[in-house]
């Protein structure tokens, strides 16, 4: 058997129930791995050694008395932009360096109530702003497969922690690719649910009309298993979907005969647009690996059809108007007044401006500035309203596509993990890294990044499966049949 910290959720569940090991032993194995590796990878900002072992002891009690739930005794970690009661949650920004939320995010509460063991908080780009995890005020996260490469972002710490067996799974947040892209860079399964499927209550809001919460796991099965536990309406989030979530495991193993798979041609041609550095080609190895996965689907009895999503190339421009606009509004709450760190100021204005200057990294400031500009009188129609209108067209592209096919398959990222520092000084190049993950987010449809093997340099490559709104089961079924672990 593998080392305990290397187990999947499913394997850990079986081991705990058959008494092969205890939750304390499983938790200790993860904590030992964190101690050994976190100094190199920097996937954790906060490690809860004592409370994790205490929670594991309680979980062992529940398991021994037959009061266990599916996630009892499973050690997990949480992106630091998601609130955890009693455990410091910084959002990777110094303005919340000492912030201890008095409540759990709804999804985290669901897991902890079952006896899930919280190992600690994962590093991320501050408030989710980034595609490389280099915009954290706690240092970049390194890719476990090659420490000179980024782990992806914004949930880089979550993906790296699970990939490096420090954590059995992580709960993260995906606004425009923040779960899927790092999962792809680190060889993990990363799932963005339909907008509204999981409660957003207790996540630090970035762009409220796009934010979603989902899992990063070692297998597609584990992602479905987590969704089974965290999905559903919440009175604390009025945008949650009211009809009950499906049974994600019921048809999980069903074969794919007759499944209609669409290949959006725009994802395989040059994307990005006319601006300097804006246009780049899909990496050959990524293209090849994606093509192999498509061949596999053909062998499994799927029908393959080329389709068109004509507004794909406008997605990044739409995304980087909408997100900074909503960001600038949401982050107004961080002003040093009611919580978080407060700097001295000679008057109220000075207190606000200094607290925010000291507490935010450069990219957070940039996004607030772009958003403030885009929403200001005279520019609202040209930027924000225009973007929301093009959003309608992007959403319509998906609606039309899903009349013809059940799922779409694309690369998750045009390239494998890039070098630490490579794009850091070019915000536009970094924004364009989201080119294949942001369209689904804009349309609010679910998508999964499936581990699909490695390139010649040994870096993981992910393939993305996009489904229609609320049809998450089809995505899991397809992902299950094509995932390539390790």
């Amino acid at each position, binding site marked *: 058997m593998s080392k305990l910290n290397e187990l999947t959720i499913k394997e850990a569940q079986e081991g705990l129930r058959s008494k092969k090991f205890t939750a304390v032993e499983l938790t200790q194995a993860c904590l030992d791995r964190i101690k050994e590796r976190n100094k190199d990878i920097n996937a954790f900002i906060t490690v809860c050694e004592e409370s994790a072992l205490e929670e594991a002891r309680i979980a062992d009690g529940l398991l021994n008395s037959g009061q266990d739930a599916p996630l009892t005794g499973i050690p997990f970690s949480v992106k630091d932009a998601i609130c955890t009661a009693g455990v410091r949650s910084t959002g990777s920004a110094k303005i919340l360096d000492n*912030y*201890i939320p*008095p*409540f759990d995010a709804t999804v985290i509460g669901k897991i902890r109530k079952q006896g899930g063991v919280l190992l600690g908080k994962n590093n991320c780009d501050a408030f989710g702003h980034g595609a490389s995890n280099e915009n954290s005020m706690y240092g970049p996260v390194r890719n476990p497969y090659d420490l000179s490469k980024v782990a992806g972002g914004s949930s880089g710490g979550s993906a790296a922690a699970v990939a490096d067996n420090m954590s059995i799974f992580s709960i993260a947040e995906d606004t425009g690719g923040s779960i899927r892209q790092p999962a792809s860079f680190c060889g993990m399964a990363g799932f963005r649910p339909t907008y*509204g499927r999981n409660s957003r209550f207790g996540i630090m809001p970035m762009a409220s*009309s796009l934010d979603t919460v989902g899992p990063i796991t070692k297998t597609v099965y584990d992602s479905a298993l987590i969704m089974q536990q965290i999905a559903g309406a919440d009175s604390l989030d*009025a*945008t949650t*979907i*009211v009809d009950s979530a499906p049974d994600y495991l019921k048809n999980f193993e069903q074969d794919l005969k007759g499944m209609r798979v669409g290949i959006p041609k725009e994802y395989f041609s040059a994307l990005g*647009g*006319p*601006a*300097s550095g804006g246009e780049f080609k899909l990496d050959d190895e990524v293209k090849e690996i994606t093509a192999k996965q498509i061949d596999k689907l053909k062998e499994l009895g799927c029908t393959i059809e080329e389709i068109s999503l004509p507004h794909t*190339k*406008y997605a990044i421009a739409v995304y*980087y108007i909408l997100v900074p606009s909503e960001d*600038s509004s949401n982050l107004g709450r961080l002003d*040093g*007044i*009611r*919580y*978080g*760190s*407060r700097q001295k*100021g*000679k*008057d*109220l*204005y*000075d*207190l*606000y*401006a*200094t607290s*925010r*200057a000291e507490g935010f990294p*450069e990219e957070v*400031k*940039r996004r*607030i*500035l*772009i958003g*403030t*500009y885009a929403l*200001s009188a005279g520019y609202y129609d040209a930027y924000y*309203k*225009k*973007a*929301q*209108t*093009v*959003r*309608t*067209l992007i*959403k319509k592209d998906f609606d039309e596509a899903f009349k013809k096919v059940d799922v779409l398959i694309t690369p998750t990222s045009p390239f494998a993990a890039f070098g630490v520092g490579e794009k850091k000084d070019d*915000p*536009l190049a970094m*924004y364009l890294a989201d080119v294949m993950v942001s369209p689904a987010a804009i349309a609010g449809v679910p998508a999964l990044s499936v581990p699909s093997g490695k390139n010649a340099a040994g870096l993981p490559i992910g393939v993305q499966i996009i489904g229609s*709104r609320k049809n998450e089961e089809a995505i899991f079924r397809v992902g299950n049949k094509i995932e390539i672990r390790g």
Partner: protein
Amino acid sequence: MPLSTQEVKKIAQLARIKLTSEEEARHAETISAVLDYMNILNEVDTSGVEPTFQVTGLEDVTRIDEPRDCKITKELMAQMPEVENAELVVPGVFAGTEEE
């Protein structure tokens, strides 16, 4: 249309963020490049297209607006930067004027 450092200064003031002059210059340069890229949207004919502000299809989700007991008052107070006699201390609102 490039953004000048003067405009960056104005936006930063509206957004309540103090910037150094190096930061102003850098934001002017990088935000100008981003805004320039956004011009790609002008290619799209959006006449007669309605904006999409949210994708849920939900409308007017309401709840009764009434006070509820707060069970975490102590924990909330513990997060406040400055407390005196169980009250949050803030600087006077009218004590100073905005910087220009």
